[in-house]
């Protein structure tokens, strides 16, 4: 029946080979559980953990373990941890003898170490930040990803973990598009020809863009009275002129003084502004084209020959107008504006009396407020006789008006349009370009192109293409390009040429291909210990989110980087590099959830919060972590410190006296201050709340995950979250006491709740509180009164009493290894792009104890992480 032939045999052999190779790729299929282990499980575990509805969804009634399944290692690690910690079996059931427990743990340890070894990072795509830095560094071009570039998702807490870095069609489309525009930067396509013959544009007083009260057309002129920095509050520009080409333009503006006060000589600036740009751009950020002193009330023609870039227009800014809504310092602002108002009232008491009668109504601003005041004045019957601008009452009124800041300044513009001081713009003309200039960008591009293409010399096309592509491909692929690879890319060039395109077009095409290549977009596919090139890349992306620099590439090619001494030296070099800012932003931003802060948007009214507070709160933690790294402070500093970084905003939040300044400053904290260390920084308190109220369970779970390194399983889906009772009738603790009553809740909550409760003294933005607030609405205003007192006392599972957050910090400093292990695990996950495995545990323990013996410095920890087997394995 069965014909036997050599051909058939070969076919079968071939199939077998395929099966074998496929099998060898997957670590191991299913492995039976040892008999002794199964007996242990049957005796002590299966009563609860078996059947259709096993306790906590953990079914241990299995004969074998499918290790290739994604979740198996995590599942059995949980079993190991519960058994080791003595959490399981629960106290109310039969307990194994210490010997039995030890034997079971030994089996689990052996099996897990085998099946969840060190290594296993999934082929890692560059994330958004890494990609941006890599395109820029490899090609040496200015580059940022477009706004439409897809964001990455976090996996195991970070957005650079292999599993989470999915490649989707929209992202691939972006890669291709960016490859073209990046190649264009090096080898630009032939420029378009545009008509650049000079033209004169006349701009009448009515042809300017006005925003709010930036100008007022009156008697055939345009009057200006404000020097506010944002263009929409203090400047005008022609609405139908923009430079067609970078070049030299002649500008003429007819301007005169309007009722200038003695000693005030108006100064006008002409500024270059992109015609289609946002109107809230600030004048101080724009390039000054010319400056004029407006000497007298007669029309003066101001002439300037200026350089404009394509798309730019000319802004008129009354640089030294006494009236301005700019606010550098609040006290100064209130004094200045109320003073100017009082001056106006002195000159025109009737205006004062009318304004006082009008008062401020919601949304009053600019012309509409002014009209209301004028209406009152025109009705007459004002008691001008008794209006005294020197009286306390009027002074207080002026001060109150000044508090309506921009609204009031706009309205003051309205009367200054009639009283001055101001300037009158009678017209403007722009002629040009009288000389065409090559764009600065084009000039830079030409230099770049020359550098990239280098000298051809006497090379033929093949050799020339090799000479250009060899260095750029090696940089792009982060290892020397192989001869075969180089030949493929050179072929692209030569084939393209053969199809009738220019040599440069061929190079352009090869660069585009390289930027879409898997060797560029992904890293680390070689199994086992990293070779020097993969090591260079892993180190460089870990600490700088950028590709290896020339020095790392050189050390890698010499095979020296894997030498531990060299590796340490390079790690310390990168830690001092400016680019370590990427590590600080990216790692700290994700570990401590600083990146989430902008989305929290605390309730401004309830929590007396303003958006600017966020800058201070974020900067404090960034600067704090940066110093710990730079100065190699011990890890205990994260928990408790005698310094922090403040400006007036977070200082106010903390109730610490501080000068009235927005500049962040390093500050030594009073002994015993609660604010040392990250646990009590406003950033962390914000990240662990929701912007309205606090939930001790969420804070506690966050602390366990990010400080204690003991992630807890998510809450059971059938239990609703505890909602804070805002009426103040019940304390949160009473609501949460249920956790203690139910044994299955208590197992996790005895760990989660204590650090959460201890932090209840901190409100959702990190302010200290002794009482929970009760908010009440009175006459459209929210009034806060004291509710239940905060009860922060708690007890850790090991019996340690915590009466306040200082106790928690003391506990963590005394047991700093708990925190060090957590931080080391986070660093390893971030650096290797994979969650830590069972096999990593011993290595982490070694790192932690080794670093502690050296003085526990943060920089030393990073060096130890880099030297570890975990870091150096794919």
């Amino acid at each position, binding site marked *: 029946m069965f014909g036997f032939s050599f051909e058939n045999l070969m076919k079968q052999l071939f199939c077998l080979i395929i099966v074998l190779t496929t099998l060898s790729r997957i670590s191991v299929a299913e492995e039976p559980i040892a008999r002794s282990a199964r007996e242990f499980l049957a005796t002590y575990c299966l009563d609860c953990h078996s059947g259709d509805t096993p306790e906590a969804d953990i079914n241990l009634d299995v004969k074998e373990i499918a290790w290739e399944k994604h979740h198996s290692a995590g599942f059995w690690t949980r079993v190991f941890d519960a058994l080791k910690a003595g959490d399981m079996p629960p106290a109310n059931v039969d307990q194994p003898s210490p010997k039995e427990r030890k034997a079971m743990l030994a089996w689990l340890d052996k099996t897990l170490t085998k099946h969840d070894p060190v290594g296993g990072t999934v*082929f890692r795509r560059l994330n958004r930040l890494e990609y941006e830095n890599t395109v820029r560094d490899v090609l040496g071009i200015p580059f940022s990803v477009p706004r439409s570039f897809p964001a990455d998702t976090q996996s195991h807490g970070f957005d650079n973990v292999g599993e989470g870095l999915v490649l989707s*069609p929209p992202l691939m*489309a972006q890669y291709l598009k960016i490859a073209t525009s990046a190649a264009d930067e090096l080898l630009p396509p032939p420029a378009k020809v545009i008509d650049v013959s000079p033209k004169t544009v006349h701009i009448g007083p009515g042809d300017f863009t006005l*925003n709010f009260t930036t100008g007022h057309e009156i008697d055939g002129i345009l009057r200006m009275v404000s020097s506010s920095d944002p263009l929409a509050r203090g400047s005008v520009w022609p609405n139908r002129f923009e430079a067609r080409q970078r070049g030299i333009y002649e500008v003429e503006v007819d301007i005169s003084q309007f009722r200038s006060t003695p000693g005030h000589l108006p100064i006008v600036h002409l500024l270059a502004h992109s015609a*289609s740009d946002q109107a809230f751009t600030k004048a101080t950020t724009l390039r000054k084209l010319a400056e004029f002193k407006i000497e007298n009330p007669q029309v003066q023609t101001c002439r300037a020959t200026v350089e404009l870039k394509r798309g730019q227009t000319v802004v008129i800014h009354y640089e030294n107008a006494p009236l301005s809504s700019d606010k550098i310092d609040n006290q100064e602002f209130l004094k200045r504006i109320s003073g100017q108002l009082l001056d106006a009232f002195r000159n025109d008491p009737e205006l004062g009396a009318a304004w006082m009668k009008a008062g401020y109504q919601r949304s009053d601003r600019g012309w*509409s407020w002014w009209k209301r005041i004028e209406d009152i004045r025109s009705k007459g019957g004002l008691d001008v006789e008794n209006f005294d601008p020197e009286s306390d009452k009027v002074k207080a009124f002026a001060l109150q008006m000044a508090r309506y800041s921009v609204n009031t300044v706009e309205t003051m513009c309205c009367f200054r349009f009639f009283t001055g001081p101001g300037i009158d713009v009678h017209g403007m003309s722009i002629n040009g370009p009288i000389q065409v200039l090559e764009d600065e960008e084009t000039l830079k591009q030409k230099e770049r192109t020359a550098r990239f293409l280098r000298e051809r010399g006497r090379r033929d096309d093949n050799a020339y293409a090799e000479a250009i592509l060899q260095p750029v491909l090696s940089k792009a692929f982060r290892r020397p390009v192989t001869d075969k690879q180089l030949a493929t890319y050179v072929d692209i060039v030569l084939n393209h040429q053969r199809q009738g395109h220019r040599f440069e077009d061929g190079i352009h095409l090869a660069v585009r291909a390289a930027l879409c290549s*898997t060797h560029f977009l992904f890293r680390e596919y070689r199994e086992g210990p990293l070779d020097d090139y993969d090591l260079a890349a892993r180190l460089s992306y870990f600490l700088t989110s950028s590709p290896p620099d020339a020095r790392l590439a050189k050390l890698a090619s010499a095979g020296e980087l894997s030498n531990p001494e060299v590796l340490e030296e390079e790690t310390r070099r990168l830690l001092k590099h400016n680019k370590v800012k990427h590590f600080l932003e990216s790692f700290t931003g994700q570990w401590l959830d600083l990146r989430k802060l902008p989305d929290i*948007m605390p309730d401004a009214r309830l929590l007396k919060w303003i958006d600017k507070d966020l800058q201070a709160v974020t900067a404090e933690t960034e600067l704090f972590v940066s110093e710990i790294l730079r100065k190699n402070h011990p890890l205990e500093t994260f928990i408790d410190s005698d310094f922090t970084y403040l400006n007036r905003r977070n200082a106010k939040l903390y109730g610490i006296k501080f000068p009235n300044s927005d500049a962040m400053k390093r500050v030594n904290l009073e002994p015993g201050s609660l604010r040392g260390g990250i646990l009590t920084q406003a950033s962390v308190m914000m990240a662990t709340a929701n912007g309205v109220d606090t939930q001790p369970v969420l804070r506690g779970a966050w602390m366990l995950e990010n400080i204690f390194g003991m992630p807890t399983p998510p809450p059971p889906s059938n239990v609703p979250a505890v909602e804070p009772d805002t009426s103040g009738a019940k304390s949160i603790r009473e609501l949460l006491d249920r956790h203690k009553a139910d044994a299955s809740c208590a197992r996790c909550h005895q760990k989660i709740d204590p650090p959460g409760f201890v932090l209840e003294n901190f409100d959702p933005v990190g302010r200290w509180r002794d009482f929970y607030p009760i908010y009440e609405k009175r006459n459209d205003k929210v009034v806060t009164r004291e509710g239940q007192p905060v009860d922060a006392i708690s007890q850790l599972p090991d019996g340690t009493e915590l009466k306040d957050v200082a106790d928690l910090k003391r506990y963590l400093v005394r047991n700093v290894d708990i925190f060090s292990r957590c931080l080391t695990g986070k660093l390893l996950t971030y650096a290797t792009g994979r969650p830590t495995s069972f096999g990593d545990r011993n290595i982490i323990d070694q790192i932690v104890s080794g670093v502690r013996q050296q003085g526990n410095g943060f920089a030393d920890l990073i060096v130890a992480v880099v030297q570890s087997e975990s870091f150096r394995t794919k």
Partner: protein
Amino acid sequence: MSQSSTFLNRRRFLRTSGVALALPLLESLLTKTASAKDGKAPKVKRLVTIGTYLGFHTPSWFPEQTGRDYSASPVLKPIDDLRDDFTIFSGLDHRAPNGHKNWKNYLTGKGTPGISLDQIVAKAVGEKTRFESLQVTCGSSGEGQMSFTKEGIALPAIGRPSVLFGHLFHSGENKARMEYLLDSGGSVLDVVLDEARSLQRQVNARDAAKLDEYFSSVRDVEQKLKKQRAWLNVPTPKVDFKLPEFDPVAPDLSLECESLMYDLMVLALETDSTRVISFLAPGQGQVFTIDGEKLSAGYHGLSHHGNDPDKIAEFNAVGKEHVSRFGQFVRKLKERKDSDGQSLLDSTAILYGSGMGNANTHNNSNLPVLVAGGPFKHGSHHAINRDSSSAPLLGDLFLTLMQSMGLEEDRFVNASRNVNELLF
């Protein structure tokens, strides 16, 4: 050399047969959908979604009466002659949070970031046209507010009339460059696919799965390039339209820009360049001149009118300017015919309104919205009682719009019904 010769062959295939194949295919698609003779084909072929950033004074927008015999509200007066071509809704919103930042919920429903209505529709009907969808605004301040991909990425909008015109009816010079980039772009993908294939033989199973993401993404992009390439050979329509010499991008000229953009949108629909357009009329502090008079305050300032009647009157003056430009747009769609000889308006559904319910308080509930065009039963003002537990949401209106276009969607974020009984 063998490597490159295979990609040459593939290229040659695309260049010769690919285009030749693609063209009739596109044409047959066009005629098939356009003729819609089988009776089952959806009657609505196009969707235009329009948003006004600062919204309207809703008491001046919603008519006082409901039903058919309402008297025109002050803001909607400029389009009262068209009342049988649109339906006004009050009481609709997404039950989403308030504030300028949440304006983006207008087309995405409660819970940004998510995909916007226009992009859901574009995915379903965009295949057939040169542009899957267009995003249009005036100047640069209105970018990134209306249209979002399913990944929650804001789509950039075109704010210069000259750029939109060039995009739709591009010049020969642009065309040559695009042709070149598309052809060579295809060959780039061939090379990197070859590389990835040789890599795949060296990696473990989990890494191979990652590489599969790469393969399928590249294939998807290849399809898109092919489609774009085929379209390049279909000549862009010749239109009789003269662009002004100067793009009115200055903020105080945004109403002028709005008129131009509406005209170009009519052309885009008439030439079947796209079937999905979203348009955002932006608003900042610009001081408008209306009927030769400068308004007394900046637009944004007017929107925070504080219930001052004078300010409301001026805010409404700007609102009426928006509405009358919209009216012009509708009238033009009514006059022009599509390839079936049907009026463009009858086969185009238009959502007009704002993601801002009340700019004075930054409130995003009870949004001003109306639906125009399409085969709907128009002419009424439907007041939805928001307090009723069975009150439909704005998302339910979206579902009706999508279903009228033949999309089998029965959920939109928090909405799962429709308002068919009000429109059919």
